[in-house]
């Protein structure tokens, strides 16, 4: 399902949150990018993510990963904590902090 190798970090450092590894920290730059196999309409997922606080400009940091397949993930979202599956997290685009690029590949 999820693979850290699937998305190699682009030069800009913008990646889907679902593909980042534990320790990643960055800023949300886009919400609502359609997830590939999601059951929800993209618009509905976008609004749910917005309602729980995934909004452009919010700071994110991946704190924990599930034991099996490193899914779901627990993230610090500004000053709260949110758990979500990587599939849903893929709809959140994040810009890695400077010097954080190593974590993107640390996924595998």
């Amino acid at each position, binding site marked *: 399902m999820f693979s850290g190798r699937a998305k190699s970090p682009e030069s800009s450092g913008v990646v889907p949150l679902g593909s980042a590894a534990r320790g990643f920290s960055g800023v949300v730059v886009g919400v609502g990018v359609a997830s590939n196999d999601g059951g929800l309409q993209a618009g509905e997922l976008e*609004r749910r993510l917005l*309602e*729980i*606080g995934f909004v*452009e400009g919010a700071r994110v940091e991946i704190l924990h990963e599930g034991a099996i397949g490193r*899914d779901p993930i627990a993230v610090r979202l500004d000053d*709260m904590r*949110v*758990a*979500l599956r990587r599939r849903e997290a893929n709809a959140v685009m994040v810009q890695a902090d400077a010097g954080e690029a190593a974590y993107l590949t640390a996924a595998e």
Partner: protein
Amino acid sequence: MSLDLGETLESPSSPATDSVATPPPPTSATPTAIPRIALVGTPNCGKTALFNALTGARQKVANYAGVTVERKEGPVVAADGWRGRVVDLPGTYSLRARSPDEAVTRDVVLGRFAGEAEPDVIICVADATNLRLVLRLALELKSVGRPMVLALNMFDIAERQGWRIDVERLSRELGVPVVTTVATRKRGMETLLDAVRGLAVRPIEAHAWREPTSTELRVAHREAERIRKACVTQPTQPDTLTGRLDSVLLHPIAGSAILLTVLFLMFQAVFTWAQPVMDLIKAGFDHLATLVAQVMPEGVLRSLITDGVISGVGSVLVFLPQILILFLFIILLEDFGYMARAAFLMDKVMGGAGLHGRAFIPLLSSFACAIPGIMGARVIDSKRDRLTTILVAPLMTCSARIPVYTLIISAFIPNKTVWGFVNLQGLVMFGLYGAGIVSALLVGFIIRKLFWRGASEPFIMELPAYKLPDAKNVIMGVLTRAKIFLRRAGTVILSMMILIWFLSSVPGKPAGAVGPAIDYSFAGMIGHFIEPVLRPIGFNWQIAVALIPGMAAREVSVAALGTVYAVAGGAEAVGPLGNALHNQWSMPTALAFLAWFIFAPQCASTFGVVKRETNSWAWPTAMFAYMMALAYLAAFAAFHIAKASGL
């Protein structure tokens, strides 16, 4: 979303103080004029604690008409006698409802829930340490146009952690009165009520509401964020306790080990602590039945009271201790903030079977009894996930199956060691439990694939900060569960028990007849009638008859077998039931009987609760049908495989 600041800028202080100065005299409050106050807030904001602090123990818990969402309401009385009615609405991040619970919140707030009076004032409850999302909710609520107060709850914790909140500025920015409260210590309640009273006299200018688009949500977030930055200063030293606890409790290995330990303790408690009380309840009801039997003349009425009502109520009440202990643990874990972590740890495992991470605890509870498990499925937001969980919950091996399993195992499975160290009887018991778990996961998977294809609910959940549970709120929560269970036991379940008694004892045994009385009853007739259907799975007519009263509860089948065999077999069957069965049944029949009980829908109470929880007879019927089909297939397979292998 229209923020409409112009209209409300004058509101925060002046009307509130005005009305505080001239409170309506208590005598003028007629029942129709009692203002209705609705509590709205995000999950984990301490809303229930605030509700408890306002209403005390006088709250009423029921369901909303037509939906299985809990409706909690209670009266509130101010120090000077002013009265109001408070309704606690399900927690939500948005009026855009995602679950049946949230739809209730939306419809009540908008005043369009049929049969519910419109709220006069809304109290928006906020966790003062976590204002980010609730400020956006507050803006959305305000746009509805109803008078609103913002209660900054858990204000003591916020102060201790070093949060600085400019309450006056916040009130000015939002255009609503803002009150600080500490619900667990009942602090700020009078101030909150004063603010509510100031607003209750204002005419409601309800606006039309429609779902905000994603663009409007972003705009509202920016506005909420601007207000938060203007009014709230974060602590210089943020609270790290939650982070430190999470690094252990969410650790892939340590976290899973701790979860297993917690569950192990929970089930130890459910089985060992509850047992003495359960024995006491059972003995008490037996004693009561004996007493009644002594004072009443023999006849149908006595039989109805002793065998129908008393033993019927007793067989349900006996589960009360287990339910109380289970809910004590569930509420403690929920209030501590651990439940969301358990869901996080188990989501992948549950997700493989098409279930939500939150389904884990209800399914686990079902090992004690499916009834609290099905009631506990309310923690799952999505309707589909909730239904799947309810449908598979009775497949978990509940404690009522234990008497059946132990009887058959001790009578038929040799007490010997296999593979050098494994006790064969224990292995069979383990296999029966395992079969229940595997089949529940498989059925969940099939339901998801067959009926709700593609529509997979997302798993997005706030992980709340850890908090010490408040003893009073925990006790009130457990008592509420007990009340709900007792009310059900007193209505749906009791009437089913009486129906089963009726089938098992009417018509009575004719004078001079031989054989057990049950053989002449409707249950006996049904048993003989269905016996040909059960013959292919190795069941004789005695089993068929015993299965009818066994619908009351699985362990009743054991007692019914005793009745059928003890009398029918005459003097030589008076010994222990196990011996009687050993002499009368073949090994394939015994194994088929065990396989039957893994799946068989032999519990009227479960269907009563499913009917209550799903608000329809369609789901209990579907559940009965699929469980019956599985039971028949499993017993058929067990009987014929055992026969073919010469057992």
